[in-house]
């Protein structure tokens, strides 16, 4: 059994929460008392129908307003897989939340209302999913019951979406006609749509191969913590603790430490105190080296020969997340990349991306909340990074406001 993390993107009325509610309900992941609570709450609101969306809306103001404000996590499992569903609101003012949710997703479900087809927000959600490098996209053409389960309606939407996916370079795409409310093609095959012979939503989620999404080529590990027990028997022990971000490390491998560019060989790899011959992403390990090297938190251990880029000039796609202050050229921030913190300043804004039609807008002076743009940064120390689309783990960074300490930007670095 493994884990699949997926995000659902859709707007207030697309039935996104209903879809998750349906997955939970049909896989029997909702327990009796939780169901009773939803029934009670549905009755209080007086709309008669049991509202499965209430299963995911956790905060008081969300339940009061009937909308999802924040990213919510739900868990369910089948005999094959543990699922982590990430529910993020899809409205334009919540682009920040979708980016947040998408950053940890292996797969995105994009909901389209069958009555409306591909709309502005479909383009926005698809763009975010592709910028964030989510490897698998499933389009759920929802509310098929409201278009008479029409095959033509579905095919038309599917065709239109494929054009969009080509434009964005989406590789693994699956399009499924569903009704989350009625349960068609979610867990059970729809009897109302005999013309659809493909997989149901759950079947696809259970079987999509995420093993191949791991980068096993570029050996990288950011050092989190130096273990020095300094006891009698472990007097000379010096272990570098971290989680392998990508690639494979083996005993005897030559490595380079960045940014210092010192070299050594791996003497030992330990997994929680026990020695192993080799280890791979995403394992947490401790690496011991053959020679004394000056390493501390924030350094990156890389396989020798296949090293990341080492530079103080960084180009990145950024999503701006601060609702109080704008990003302007010349501003300074703390950049967190891997385990390193480094000061940086904004050198330029190349262009802003119109999230609805993908046009590049130039001559941009500043970025506001939810803006997505290409920027150039200059860091105070060299940064050891890979291109985000090649190596998500070592190409991602956040910007932190130097005084409020709030996370204000999400960066996808380009090489």
């Amino acid at each position, binding site marked *: 059994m493994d884990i699949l993390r997926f995000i659902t993107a859709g707007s207030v009325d697309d039935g996104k929460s209903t879809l998750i509610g349906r997955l939970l309900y049909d896989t029997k992941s909702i327990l009796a008392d939780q169901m009773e609570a939803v029934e009670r*709450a549905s009755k209080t609101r007086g709309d008669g129908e049991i509202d499965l969306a209430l299963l995911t809306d956790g905060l008081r103001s969300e339940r009061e307003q009937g909308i999802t404000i924040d990213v919510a996590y739900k*868990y369910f499992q089948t005999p094959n897989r543990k699922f982590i569903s990430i529910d993020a609101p899809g409205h334009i003012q919540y682009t920040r939340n979708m980016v947040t949710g998408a950053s940890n997703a292996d797969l995105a479900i994009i909901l389209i209302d069958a009555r409306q087809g591909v709309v502005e927000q479909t383009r926005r959600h698809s763009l975010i999913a592709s910028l964030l490098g989510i490897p698998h996209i499933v389009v759920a053409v929802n509310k098929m019951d409201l278009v008479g389960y029409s095959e033509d309606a579905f095919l038309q939407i599917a065709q239109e979406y494929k054009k969009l996916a080509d434009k964005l370079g989406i590789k693994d795409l699956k399009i499924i006609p569903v009704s989350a409310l009625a349960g068609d093609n979610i867990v059970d095959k729809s009897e109302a749509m005999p013309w659809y012979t493909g997989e149901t939503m759950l079947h696809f989620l259970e079987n999509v191969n995420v093993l191949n999404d791991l980068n096993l080529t570029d050996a990288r590990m950011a050092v989190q913590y130096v273990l020095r027990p300094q006891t009698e028997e472990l007097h000379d022990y010096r272990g570098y603790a971290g*989680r392998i971000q990508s690639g494979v490390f083996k005993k005897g491998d030559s490595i380079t430490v960045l940014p210092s560019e010192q070299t050594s060989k791996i003497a030992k790899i330990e997994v929680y105190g026990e020695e192993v011959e080799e280890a791979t992403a995403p394992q947490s390990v401790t690496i011991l080296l053959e020679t004394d090297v000056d390493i501390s938190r924030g350094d990156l251990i890389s396989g020798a020969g296949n090293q990341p880029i080492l530079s103080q000039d960084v180009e990145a796609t950024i999503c701006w997340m601060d609702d109080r202050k704008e990003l302007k050229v010349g501003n300074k921030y703390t950049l967190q990349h891997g385990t390193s913190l480094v000061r940086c300043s904004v050198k330029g804004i190349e262009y802003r991306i119109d999230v609805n039609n993908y046009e590049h807008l130039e001559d941009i002076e500043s970025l506001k909340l939810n803006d997505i743009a290409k920027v150039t940064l200059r860091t105070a120390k060299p940064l050891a990074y890979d291109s985000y689309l090649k190596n998500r783990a070592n190409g991602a960074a956040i910007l932190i406001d130097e005084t409020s*300490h709030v996370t204000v930007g*999400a960066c996808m670095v380009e090489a």
Partner: protein
Amino acid sequence: MSNIQSPESIVQRQDYLDQLESEAIYIMREVAGQFERPALLFSGGKDSITLVRLAQKAFAPGKIPFPLVHIDTGHNFPEATQYRDWLANEVGAKLIVRQVEDTIKAKGLKEQTGKNATRNWLQTFTLLDTIEEFEFDACIGGARRDEEKARAKERIFSFRDEFGQWDPKRQRPELWNLFNGKISKGENVRCFPISNWTELDVWSYIEREKIPLPSIYFSHQREMILRDGNLLANADFIFKDENDVIVTKTVRFRTVGDMTCTAAVESDADTIEKVVNEIKATRISERGETRIDDQQTEAAMEDRKKGGYF
């Protein structure tokens, strides 16, 4: 090198518990790496016991580099406090215990009285005082997102202002696995390494790792108070009236909180295997079945967290 397997096969060999463990250990190490004075909030319950095992693994072969902190309401199960002392000694960790009773006296706090009175809310005062006393900048807790709907929305690194308050509407965006632990003096961060674990994951992990648990988690005979369909363990400090019936039952506890607000389930499961099987078969959630404090209002947990609760 025929004894070395292909990377793909190693990845495949890592099952979901390995992945959860690796993530939790990564978070533990981030806490130790980013903060100067972290602490692990230990309740004696299975989730914080799991945290202690994860912390041991994260820093092996060294010792856990932060203290275990227990906020003792004085209403704990004696089995849980005995276990706490044994475990701290066993893993060689420093144990700090602070009593809610002392805070009540020192601050003249008013306790709830009567039926279903609990010190649950008062724990927050002692917790915030303890954080101040030791200047903890990070507190590791065993909260899980599947437990409760307000917790489903909380970050793994959850920022608290100088009054210990959680503001659900102004949470920091949390992207990838880049945890932002930057704070100013007086503020702190609550860190939740097992956010992505479910109740069943915790039990399965305890089974796999053969982690010893306090005896109350397994089937035993006990004198109970039967009240509104809930079974509460009998103790002198629990207020009883004529509607309460005292019965002897064979029970186990699915969660371990205060005796005043933790209900038992009737069960013959006396081994971890049997408990895991019962959890797999249950149709009622953990908090719904056993936490009287959460049955009170729809947003009980959200309100407590805003006030600085765990």
